[in-house]
Every structure is written in C-alpha cells, then in structure tokens.
C-alpha cells in the first residue's frame, strides 16, 4: 500500500489525456470511422513540446504566461481531488473553494492571454468564455454545497468519502439532481457540446479553441495537457458522486472509479455525436437550469 499515494498523484497526470482519446474514439466509432490511435493525445503533446514557437508582435509576457499559469493551476488542483473514495493527497476543510478558484485562475489567464493577441476573434471567444463560466460557477458551488450539506463535511475528501450507496438510498432524488448539475458544469467547463464544439473550424463559432489559436509549441502543449487535466478533475468530481463504490478496498474502488471515468468519457462522446452545439443564446439557459437543479437539490435536503 505504500505506493498508493504515488499512484494517487500519478494516476491523473498519466491517464488524463486518455480521456480525450476515449471521447474521440467513441465519436469515431459512432461515426463509423476507426478513429485515431489510443495514444494520439500523448503524441500530440510530445510533438508540440519539441517544436519552436511564433509570437505575435502585439503580445507581451502576459501571453506567454497564460498557458504556464493555466497548466500549473490545474496540476495543483489535481492534488485536491479525491479519487475512488480515497482522500486526496491534500485535503482540508474548504479545499472545495480552493479547487474552484484554481480553475478560475487558469481560466482567467487563458482569457487575458487571448486578449493579449489583440485579435477580435480571440476577444470574442474570451468574452463568451467568461460569460459561460460566470454562470457555471454558482452551479458548481451549489452542487458541491449540496454534497457538503448531505455529508455535513467541508473538505472534498470527507464529502466524497461520505457519499456511499447508503447516501443514495436516503437522498436519491437530491443526489440525482446534483449529478445532473455537475454534468452540465462538466460539459460547459470543458468546452464540450452542447456548449462549445472543440472540433469546429469556423472561428466565429468557437469559444475555447479561438482563444488559443495563437499559441504554438510548448505553450500549446501546456494548453492541450491542461484541458485534459481539467477534464479529469471535473470528471472525478462527477464520477465520485455518481459511482458510490465505497467497499473500503482501494483497488476495487479505484477500478470502479476508473471504469466510471471511462464511462463518462464515452457518454461525452455519445452526447457529442448525437447532438449539435446549441445556439449561443440558449447556452445560458442550460447553465442557469444547472444552477436551478442544484438549488432544488438543496431545497430537498433543507426540508
């Protein structure tokens, strides 16, 4: 068991890109293609790390700092997320907030880096990004608050450690609502359909992609890897709630959680291939409804 902590830290760093390829594979299969190789994301990152870079004349150090700070924040945040029912390597009461704000930090630097290019498209993407995340933030907080209320504990690890089959038994409807809210947040924050389409090639419709158009080389590598990590972090929050496997046996629980992550990735892939990106004006409705779901869950718990 001594290698458990190492696994715990290593797992996300290692497996996060895999989520990307699972999603892509799923979409390919649904589309009838056989899709890219499993290790494609890793190869992309490595290739980019080995390249040089081109910087726009309008940019300043802020542009260069963006990806670095972003990926750094995400790296730290992975250490806060419990996985498979085991407490995270760093756990304290209130780490919920730290996690959320680390994501916020990453987003903020991505946004200002985008604005630094002076491109109107980047500005457009940045504006949309902040709009949607502004609405996603309360949903995330309320959802986590609901879990906290249910397990009456303030640290992620305790909260997720406390969620078990028994919890579902007593508060299934509330937790279901929370899961729904978290799913929406997951999709929105990771720039997934129906909020954003990562594969589009039309700048006008992009949100996340257009912000990173100007990055290249190691910076882009950081960004790709960072987005994978973000996928993992939010996914872990969702899965930890949805798959309440708390047998106490670390390996079993871990396996269950991993299966859950894979399932989540496939679900994402299915969603992406089964529906189109919503019109921008409708996205806020989706996010607000996520907030409503979480609030509803809290009401159910408060009564």
């Amino acid at each position: 068991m001594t290698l458990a902590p190492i696994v715990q830290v290593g797992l996300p760093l290692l497996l996060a890109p895999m989520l990307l390829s699972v999603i892509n594979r799923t979409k390919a299969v649904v589309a009838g293609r056989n899709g890219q190789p499993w290790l494609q994301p890793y190869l992309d990152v490595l290739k980019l790390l080995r390249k040089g870079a081109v910087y726009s004349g309008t940019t300043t150090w802020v542009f260069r700092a963006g990806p670095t700070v972003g990926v750094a924040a995400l790296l730290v945040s992975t250490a806060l997320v419990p996985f498979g029912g085991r407490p995270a390597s760093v756990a304290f009461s209130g780490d919920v907030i730290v996690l959320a704000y680390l994501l916020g930090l990453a987003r903020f630097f991505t946004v200002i880096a985008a604005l630094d290019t002076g491109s109107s498209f980047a500005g457009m993407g940045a504006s949309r990004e902040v709009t949607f995340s502004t609405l996603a933030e309360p949903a995330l907080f309320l959802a986590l608050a609901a879990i906290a209320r249910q397990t009456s504990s303030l640290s992620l690890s305790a909260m997720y450690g406390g969620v078990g089959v028994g919890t579902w038994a007593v508060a299934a409807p509330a937790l279901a609502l929370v899961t729904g809210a978290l799913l929406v947040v997951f999709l929105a924050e990771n720039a997934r359909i129906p909020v954003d389409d990562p594969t589009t090639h039309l700048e006008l419709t992009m949100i996340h992609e257009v912000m990173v158009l100007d990055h290249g080389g190691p910076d882009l590598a950081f960004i790709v890897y960072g987005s994978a990590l973000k996928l993992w972090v939010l996914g872990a929050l969702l899965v930890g709630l949805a798959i309440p496997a708390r047998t106490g046996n670390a390996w079993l629980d871990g396996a269950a959680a991993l299966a859950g992550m894979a399932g989540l990735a496939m679900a994402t892939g299915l969603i992406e291939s089964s529906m189109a990106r919503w019109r921008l004006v409708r996205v806020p409705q989706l996010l607000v409804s996520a907030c409503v779901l979480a609030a509803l869950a809290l009401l159910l718990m408060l009564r």
Partner: protein
Amino acid sequence: MTLVLVATALLVASGLGAVVIQSPRWCNAVGAGGAVGGCLLGLFSAAHALIDSANESLRVAWDVPGGAFYVEIDALSALFLLLIFGLSALAAIYGSEYVRHYEHKKWLGPPWFFFNLLAASMAMVVIARNGLLFLMAWEVMALASFFLVMFDDESEAVRAAGWTYLVATHLGTVFLLVFFVLAGQARGSLDFDRLGAGSAPASVLFLLAVVGFGTKAGFMPFHVWLPEAHPAAPSYVSALLSGVMLKTGVYGLLRTLTLLGPPPAWWGWLLCGIGLTSGIGGVLFALAQHDVKRLLAYSSVENIGIVTLGIGIGVVGLNADVPAVAVLGFVGGLIHIVNHAVFKGLLFLAAGAVVQATGTREIDRLGGVMKLMPWTGSVFLVGVVAICGLPPLNGFIGELLIYLGALRGVVTPGSVVAVPALVVLGGLALIGGLATAAFAKVFGVVFLGAARSEVAHAHEPGLTMRAPMIALAVGCLLIGCLAPTLVRVLVPVVAGATGLPIGRVAANLSPALSSLRAVVSCALGLLVTVALLVGLRQRLLAGRHVERGPTWDCGYAQPSARMQYTASSFAQPLTELFAALLQTRRQIVTPAGLFPRAASLQTSTPDICTTRVYQPVFGAVGRGLFALRWLQHGRVNLYVLYIALALLVLLMWKLG
C-alpha cells in the same frame, strides 16, 4: 494614544503650513512630507496597539452640550487606523508627484490642506468615543473629501459630482444625528460606552445606522454619489476614498452592532440582502462602464457588498449562537476590508498613472499600454488578480473565509442559518464570476492588445509614483502568504466586534487557521509549479526557432487596431443577460444604402437608482416647491392680508 493624537495634530499642522506657504514646490513638500510623517507616526502606534492589544483611552471634559473629548484605541480602531495611515502615506507620496502637473495652473495649498485634514479626520472618526466628537470628525471628513473631489472644478461634470456627493453625505449624516441622539437618551450621555437602545427600540437604531453609515459605505440604494465622486477626484484621492473612507462606514456599522446588544435574526438577513444587492449590482454596473475609474468605483460598491455579506452571515451566526459561522463571517469581512484597501488603492493609483499619461479615462480609447508602461501594467495585473479573489493573492483569503463561514452555515442542521448561508454562497460565486469578467475586460482592453489611440506618448511615471504602487502590489502577495498570521492578529478585533470572549473566538478560528495554512501551502505549491514550468519552457525553447509574426488574422488582410474587440463588446453577452437591471441605452447608426455613411454605436449605462429613484424624487420636490412661489407675488395689499388672515385664524383657533 498620545502618539496618534500627535500624528493627527501633525497632519493638521502640516496642512495649514501648506496653505500659508507660497512657493508651490515648498507647499508640495510640506503637505506631502507632513502627511507621510504624521502617517508613519500613527502607523507605528496603531501597529503597536494592534499587536499587544491594549486598549488605551483618554477622556477630557469638553465645553459643548453633550460633548466630551473621549478617544480610545481598541483592536477594531487600531485595525482601521493601520489602514488609514498606511494608505494615506502611500497616497501622499504618489500625490506629491501627481499634483506637480498642476503646479503652474493651481494653488496646491488647499488640496494638501484638505488631504491631510481628511487623513486626520478619518483617524479621529475611528478613535472617537463620543457621539458629538464622532459626528464632528465624520462631517469634517466628508467636507475635506468633498473639497478634494472638487479639485479640478472647471469641469461641469466634476462640479455636478461634487454636488451629488455633498448632498448624499449630508443626508446620510442627518440619519446619524438622529441615531446618536436616540441612542444617547438611554443613559443621558453621548459617550459610546453609555449609548444603547433605551427610549428607542434597538431595531430603529439599527435601521438608522444602516442608512446613515450605509450612505458613506456605498450600500446599493445609497451608493449613487460613489460612481460620480470617485472618478471626479484626483486618483490618489480616489484611492484614499475607495480604499479607506468607505470603510469608515463599515466601521460605524460594526461599532453600532457592538452597542446594540444581541441582534435579532432579521438584522443578519437584511445585511445579507444588502450585501447581495450591492455585490451583484455593483459588479454588474462595473461591467457595463466605459470609464476606467468609474468602473473601479462600482467595483468598490461590489467589494463593500462582499464585506457586508461576511458581516451579515456573521450576525446570523451570532443570532443562532453558532460561533463558528459568526467568527468566520466577521473575520472574513474584516480581512476583505484590509485587502480591498490594498488592492483597490493599488488599482486606483495605477489607473491614475495611465489616465495622467494618456489623458483619457475611456477604456475603449486605450489599449496596448502594457508595452509602454510595463511597471504600471504589471502591478495593475497583480491588483486585478487580487480583486478577482484568485489565489495565491490576498483577495482570495477574505473570500475564502466568508465562503468557509457560509459552508459552515450550510452544514449546520436546520434552515435558520443554512438558508442565508446558501444565499451568501451562491451570491459570492456569481459575484466572483462577474468580477473576473469585469476585470479581465478592463485589464485586457486597457493594457493588452494593440494601442488604439491617445496612448502614443504615454510613458511610465516617475519613481515617486511607482514606488507606492509596487509597495501595494507586494502587499497583495504578502497578505496572501501571511494569511494565518493576519488572522491570528485579528482575533481580538473579531472578539471586539462580535462581543464573544477571545478564547472562544480563537477556538472557533483554529480550524480556519489550519485550512489557511493548507491554502498557503497550496499557493506556494502553485508558485513552485509555475517556476518549474517556466524553467521547463525556457529549456525547451532554448536554441529552438522562436520568431515574431502578426496575430493570426483569420483570413482578414490588415486588421487594424480599431477592429479589436472593445470593452463594451466584451461585456455585451453578460450585459444582455442582465439587461433588465442595467437598462443600457443605445444610440446605433446602422450602415445603409450602397455607399453607407460612417455607422456608429454608442452605449451608456447610467445608474438605475439615480435615473429611476433620485432624479424623479428630487425633480418632483423641486417642481412642487416652485409651484408655491406665487406666495411671494409682490402685492403689498395681499401681504397685509396674510397678516390679517393669520391673526383671524389664530384668534378663531385659540379662542373660538
């Protein structure tokens, strides 16, 4: 104690000196020098009082009805003194260079006199322990700041702003007059330790205080003077106004809470409501502004709202006897007060540097300033990260503590505490997101991208202006890293504000302390990670092919700087969402015909309270009064008729 009084005296004296001295250079030197000297003196003694929290008081009989020269420094006062003196000193240093631009066309005596008077009166406000003394200091503070706002009174806008400010603050003071008189009736003395709810019920006093102090603090319905006055004032003054003068309102509210005994639940709900309104409303209007200083002013409303949320949830905790929530709420609010003083001061100073260098406050006219003023830009970025409450800077700490309090409230069984706690939680989250949007906008559009216009000749300010900004930026980082220490120092302050015994406060704060330590380690981890990644990046790029090129223009040839995304377009999606509240006004000229003329779009977002409440009311009163003017028609016969009628009426009334 004596040291603070000496400092105050020194401030006033140097102010007078600045007025009598003729040579502008010397007047500048004396004014600024006196301010800095006095503030350092005060800083020293305030810090002393805060560290070894020893209450010193001094009471001297004073020959005015109901008055006594009664001053005291307790932990709460000491904290505010620290802010007041600290920021005043920095602002004075900055100002000494800032005003040099006006040397030839303005007499600098009065500005310095009023600046030092403002610092002195603010200090007096927080140490006064007698109602009359407090009111005097309060009003002197208001007047001094008013004259500072009127600094460049040739402009019509500035005069209008000054008028609004003077009227607002005066009306606020009226409520305070009643408050102190009623509170003083309890034991027939205006000394704070004898004030209380006697003849008047505590809730009436509380409401009076909320309106009176809220006007100064900028609570949402009473905030209208704030976005007018702060842009009008010179930037170093705006920094002082936003940074500390607003806080005197919060100070007053905290004092009031200590005077009125155990609060009923609805006080807490009211405060939470006010905090939510001010927070969301403030940040939304900030988002919609084009004027950088106006935006900062609205964001001050927002931050006051955050502070109020903290105090509100704290009061809820007090009422429900959940000390953990109470303590966290109050400490969060207090720390946010400190933080806001630091980063808002920083932002105003930096913005002032930009405004002075470029000569415009219009965000959409600026751009790319970062390249011309790297120092200013970088410290502004620090301030922005801090004010968005992002780790690892100080802004995060205060919000974290309030969040913790709210979370604790959420998990406390029952719904008395949980419901307001949830409101606070959701509200804070929303405010945080909107603030990020607003400040990403202002930083991105002003400092990043390509220069739009007016910035060509911009250049970095001199060292005297840069030093205070850098000091404040460092402050942001330090507070972020020394948070646990700061919280431990604040224990007596919280005890004073909540009326809980120190031991209990400390006990309830210990979990928060451990979390803070963890947070700090996370922050350090983050910094280390960043450092490592930067190193890695250097290694990777070393020797590789790195070239400069144009921004990827998505197929458009020759994108011009004016094609960049503007501030208003950046904020547009959010302002659209909240259009019902903001009621932004548009004048749009759409291109028409085969060879369209120049098209244009203008948006302006006036304050809804002003346009929908105050202007109509004042207008109605004015019209009503004007309608009565025929009374003085000038016909002497009818004047005599007035007399006859008055006589007749009285005789009938009293004898008939």
